[in-house]
C-alpha cells in the first residue's frame, strides 16, 4: 500500500518542503537529519518551483500502477537555489524534452491506488 505511507510524505510532495545544510549549503528533498558533509546543523528550506532538466528518459514499459499513463517522461531536475528531484515531465510533447530546458514544477495527481482508486498527489514538471 502506498496511501498510508504517502500521508507522511505530503509536506515534501505538496510543498517541496526539504532542508538545507548550514555548513555546506546542500539542499535536500526529503529532509535529512545529517548531511553527507557530517554536519547535523540543517535548516528547513522549501525548494524552488523552477529549475532545468539535467537528464531524462521516456518510460515505455511501466509498472502496473502507471500502465494507463505510458509513455511518459521522467527527468532529473536541478532546482534554482539548490536541490535536485526526480519527477515526471507533464504538459509537454515528448519530442520537446531536452537536457538543459527550463521547467516549472506543477502540482499533479501521480497515481491512484487499489480498487478504491485513492489519489496520491505530488509534483511533476513542465517545460516552460
Amino acid at each position, binding site marked *: 500500500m502506498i496511501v498510508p505511507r504517502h500521508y507522511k510524505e505530503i509536506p515534501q510532495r505538496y510543498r517541496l518542503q526539504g532542508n538545507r545544510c548550514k555548513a555546506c549549503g546542500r539542499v535536500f*528533498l526529503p529532509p535529512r537529519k545529517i548531511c553527507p558533509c557530517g554536519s547535523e546543523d540543517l535548516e528547513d528550506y522549501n525548494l524552488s518551483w523552477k529549475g532545468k532538466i539535467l*537528464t531524462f*528518459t521516456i*518510460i515505455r514499459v511501466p509498472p502496473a500502477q502507471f500502465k494507463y499513463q505510458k509513455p511518459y517522461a521522467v527527468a532529473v531536475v536541478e532546482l534554482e537555489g539548490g536541490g535536485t528531484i526526480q519527477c515526471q515531465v507533464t504538459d509537454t510533447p515528448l519530442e520537446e524534452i531536452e537536457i538543459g530546458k527550463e521547467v516549472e514544477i506543477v502540482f499533479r495527481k501521480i497515481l491512484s491506488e487499489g480498487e478504491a482508486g485513492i489519489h496520491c498527489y505530488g509534483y511533476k514538471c513542465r517545460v516552460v
Partner: protein
Amino acid sequence: MRDVAVIGVGMTKFGELWWQNLRELYVEAALEAIKDAGVDHLDSMYVGCMTSGLFCAQEHLASLMADYLGQKHISAYRIESACASSGLAFRLGFIEVASGMSDIVLVGGVEKMHTGADATYCLASAADQDYEAFHGNTFPGLYALIARAHMAKYGTTREQMAAVAVKNHYNGSMNPKAQFQMKIDKETVLNATPVADPLGLFDCSPVTDGAAAAILCPVELAKKYTDTIIKVIGSGAATSTIAVHQRDDITFLDAVYQSGKKAYEMAGIGPKDIDLAEVHDCFTIAEICDIEALGFCEVGQGGPFSEAGNTALDGKIPINTSGGLKSKGHPVGATGVAQIVELVEQLRGTAGERQVKNARRGLAQNMGGSGGSSVVHILEVQ
C-alpha cells in the same frame, strides 16, 4: 586473517524455469557446489536473495534453504543488497572463513522471478521507493537517466552501447547455462522495442530464474580437497547515494569505484594486473560505467573502448566472458555468485570455447540498484 580459497562452485541453468521453485533452484546449485568441492559438512551458510518476499511471498530463506539442503543445524543468514545480494553473501562468507570462525562455508544466491509477479514493480524496490519509484520510474528508466547523461557529457553513442550487448551475446552463445545462447547483431540492438529511451529491449538484462553457489575454506585446508587452489586475494564493498538524482555526478558509479579501490588495495594490484572480469551489465550503459570506474579504461571512454573490441574474449581485458547479465541472465539475487562461478571456471581452465588463455587473475563486480551498492572480488589461481 587467514587466506581463503574457493574450492567448489555450482549453478543452475539460467532462464525461464517455470518447473522449478525457489528452494529447488537453490538446493540444486548448492548441492552441485558441495559435490564439486567434495566437502562432507558445512559450518555456515549465506543466502543472497533480493526480493523473494515480493516475487514468491517467501522470506526466512536462511531456515528454508538450510532445511531443504539437509543442513538444519548450521548457522545460516539471508543477505540482501538488491542485485548485489550474493556478491555481499560471498564477502561475508569470506570474512567468516578469514576470521577463523568457520572452516567450510557455503555462499549462494537465488532468485525466482517468473512467478506472475510484476517484475518491474518488484525490482523498483531497489530504488528510492518514495522519491524515484513513486514517480513512475523503473530500473531501465534509472539507467536510461545515466545513459542519456553519459551520452551528453562524453559523446557516448547508442552504437557503442549496442557493441556491449553484441559482445555479451557472443560470449553467452558459448555458455550452456546461459538464458539466451544466441548471437545478435548491432541492428538487432538498435532496432529493438524501446523500453526506456535511449535504452531498448536489447540494452536490458532479462528477467531470470536461477541460483549459484560456492564453497569457501582456508587455503591450508583447500589442499586437502583440490590441486587447483583459487585464492580470494581481494574483497571490497561500498555504498553510495541510492537515488540517481542526488548524485554529484550522474554518469559516475562511485560505489563501483570505491569497492574496486578497496579490493585492488587489499590484493596489492591494479586494473592492469587483471586477466578477465565479470562486471554488472544489468544494462549496456552499466557495463560502460563499470569498466570506467574499475579503471579498465579512462573515465568517459567506456563507449569507444568497448566498440573497439578491447573487452572481447581476445581483447585487452575480456569482460563478461560468461555472457554477462545480458545473455547469461540476471536472477538478481544469484548474479554475484554466478560471476564467481565463471571466474572459477576460467581460472581452472575449464571454460571450454569461451576460455581466456593464460587466465590467472579474475575480478567480479556485483552492483545493487542503480549503483547504490557494489562489491568487488579478485580471485587468483595459485
